[in-house]
């Protein structure tokens, strides 16, 4: 049980801190959340700075243009950038955390050299076309169809919850290339394609969430021709290819958020002391319990990263345990923020009010809490399959 960093890791931290301190003051003001082209420009400019400073693709393997950093170094990077108030990964998210690592692991040499450098430089943005209106938790039942026609696939169907689709250049798309039958279960007939978003037949429609924002989009595909050379992995092997992608998060997906939540919690305590809510024992103790909660979540993150480090970067099932606890804790945090704000919790001018709305997606996105509990019960506890 060692929570100290090595000398090398501390040097890495110090260098990063110095670079952040020198770089952040020179950044332009953040764009309006509704200004999608502005957000893309801001996010990609930040990625370019990371690239020039040698921090792009930190945890990617060296032969993919990354730096092969250990999970601990990646943890330090995410912790320090959040502490310094640096921009988020933003529109680069799918490229850096899903599509890029998948191409690095499963793509041909030509595919790697075509797609990976632009992701690292911030030149190209990717989005993710996985979920469909009728394929959410049951992703393997997806129905967007791809039919081979010469040297191309002809794709027809629709996708939903596609973040950054409005400004993306590419989409990592899951399509069905073999119909489901008695002999072919859903996950055996799926193929992974890189779809150019400017291809004829692609229509993107922003999806307004309950928070009032358009973080997501629907995407309609009407006989879109995708070159067969854009297929990563074998035909019908896309499910396995995708699972490789998902494992690249290495349990570090929420590191920055946990750091941010701990800062929010301190701000909540300060606000409560200022507006008198601190005298309400229930509010005060709720804040105290959240202190225990987010400290534990930080320790759980360090635990998962330690496990991933030993396992050669592959995360264990600790990710599901973490996500179940964290998504609930985040909602608790903003429900408690509402108690601190009092009637102010109805005022959208407060960031905490909009953050409270956004927090509602946490127990749904990236695997609902119910699906996560199934995963924990089946894969960790070994309970018998059933329904």
């Amino acid at each position, binding site marked *: 049980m060692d*929570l100290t960093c090595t000398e090398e890791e501390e040097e890495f931290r110090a260098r990063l801190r110095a670079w952040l301190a020198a770089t952040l003051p020179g950044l332009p003001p953040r764009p309006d959340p509704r200004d999608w082209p502005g957000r893309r420009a801001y996010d990609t400019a930040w990625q370019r700075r990371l690239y020039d400073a040698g921090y792009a693709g930190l945890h990617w393997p060296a032969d993919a243009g990354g730096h092969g950093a250990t999970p601990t170094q990646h943890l330090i990077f995410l912790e320090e950038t959040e502490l310094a108030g640096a921009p988020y990964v933003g529109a680069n998210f799918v490229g850096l955390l899903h599509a890029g690592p998948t191409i690095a692991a499963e793509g041909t040499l030509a595919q790697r050299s075509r797609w990976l450098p632009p992701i690292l430089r911030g030149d190209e943005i990717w989005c993710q076309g996985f979920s469909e209106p009728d394929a959410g938790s049951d992703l393997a039942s997806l129905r967007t169809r791809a039919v081979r026609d010469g040297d191309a696939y002809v794709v027809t169907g629709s996708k939903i919850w596609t973040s950054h689709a409005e400004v993306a250049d590419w989409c990592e798309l899951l399509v069905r290339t073999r119909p489901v039958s008695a002999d072919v279960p859903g996950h055996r007939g799926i193929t992974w394609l890189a779809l150019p978003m400017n291809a004829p037949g692609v229509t993107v429609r922003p999806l307004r969430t309950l928070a009032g924002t358009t973080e997501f989009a629907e995407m309609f595909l009407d006989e879109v021709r995708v070159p067969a050379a854009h297929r990563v992995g074998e035909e019908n092997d896309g499910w396995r290819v995708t699972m490789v992608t998902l494992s690249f998060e290495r349990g570090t997906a929420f590191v920055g958020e946990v750091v941010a939540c701990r800062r929010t919690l301190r701000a909540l305590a300060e606000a409560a002391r200022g507006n008198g809510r601190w005298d309400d024992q229930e509010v005060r103790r*709720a804040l105290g319990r959240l202190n*225990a909660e987010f*400290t534990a979540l930080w320790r759980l993150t360090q*635990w998962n990263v*330690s496990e991933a480090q030993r396992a050669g970067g592959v995360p264990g099932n600790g990710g599901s345990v973490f996500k179940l606890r964290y998504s609930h804790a985040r909602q608790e945090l903003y429900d408690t923020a509402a108690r601190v704000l009092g009637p102010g919790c109805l005022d959208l001018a407060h960031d905490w009010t909009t953050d409270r709305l956004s927090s509602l997606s946490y127990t749904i996105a990236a695997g609902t809490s119910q699906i996560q509990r*199934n995963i924990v019960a089946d894969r960790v506890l070994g*309970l018998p399959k059933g329904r």
Partner: protein
Amino acid sequence: MDFRLTDDQRALQEGVRKLLEGRFGRERLRAAVDGPGAEPVPSLDRALWRELGDAGFFGLRLPERDGGVGLGLPEAVLAFEEAGRALLPGPLVATHLAAGTVPGAATGKTVVARVDGELVEWLDAADHVLGNAAGAVPVRSVDPLTPLHRVPGAAGERGAVTGSGVVTGSGAESGSGAAGGFGAADAVLAALLTAAEQLGSAGRTTEAAVRYAREREQFGRPIGSFQAVKHLCAQMLVRTETARAAVYGAAVTGDAVEIAGAKLLADDAAVRNARDCLQVHGGMGFTWEADVHLHLKRAWTRAERWPAEREAAELLAAALR
């Protein structure tokens, strides 16, 4: 950074588990609850207490030159986690903390009780009492393996815990206090070791629930194949693993606030897991014969030790600066 257990720590964990399985397995547990000497107040197994002493359970953190094992808080936490799993009875925390200051405590010759709150555990069995137990009145304890006394107005015995600072975990300096008493650092260490026991119990009830859910069949299949049961078990694991990260983290840092947080989460995990374990066991869970109630009652007892939920929450709130 490598938060995981070292090979030595794993070996220690396995060693304590084997020792307790051999010396305080299920039969011994049930004999302590139901056998002669269980009523009206359970008796302490002095031979077992000596064996624990010989195995280094009490002198774990004492320097080797003082006859101890010379290990630290993380190792003590692992040993107490095993004690919690096994439902090992007795004033384990008080005796462990007294090792090095009360003669015979480290070897298990002397049984030590502590007055550090309104409720005192194992007062009659103790050879040495830390704190002032004057006016102690016996309580009909809910836990059949934890005799309790109530000491009116004893909450102040603990010394002030301000919610800041770090305990070092070195046995040489903890445990010492004026006139056979003890300081705030001891209260913090006691909270951590109690949290470790709760963690052990939470892990044990999770395993018991999962095993029962695999074996018990209704409607022609194991009840563990039903999502309603699966999800109860999954939440038990989430509570256990969150508490584990909190308790182990607090053992490494020795931070008083982090320890309060670990106690809060471990109390919650132990109590709620015992409740869910009882639920998974259905009617069997409500019987005296099943062990579930022993875990629940012990978890309730430990949850009342300082800091109880309300006290921990206040400490943790005050630390938010």
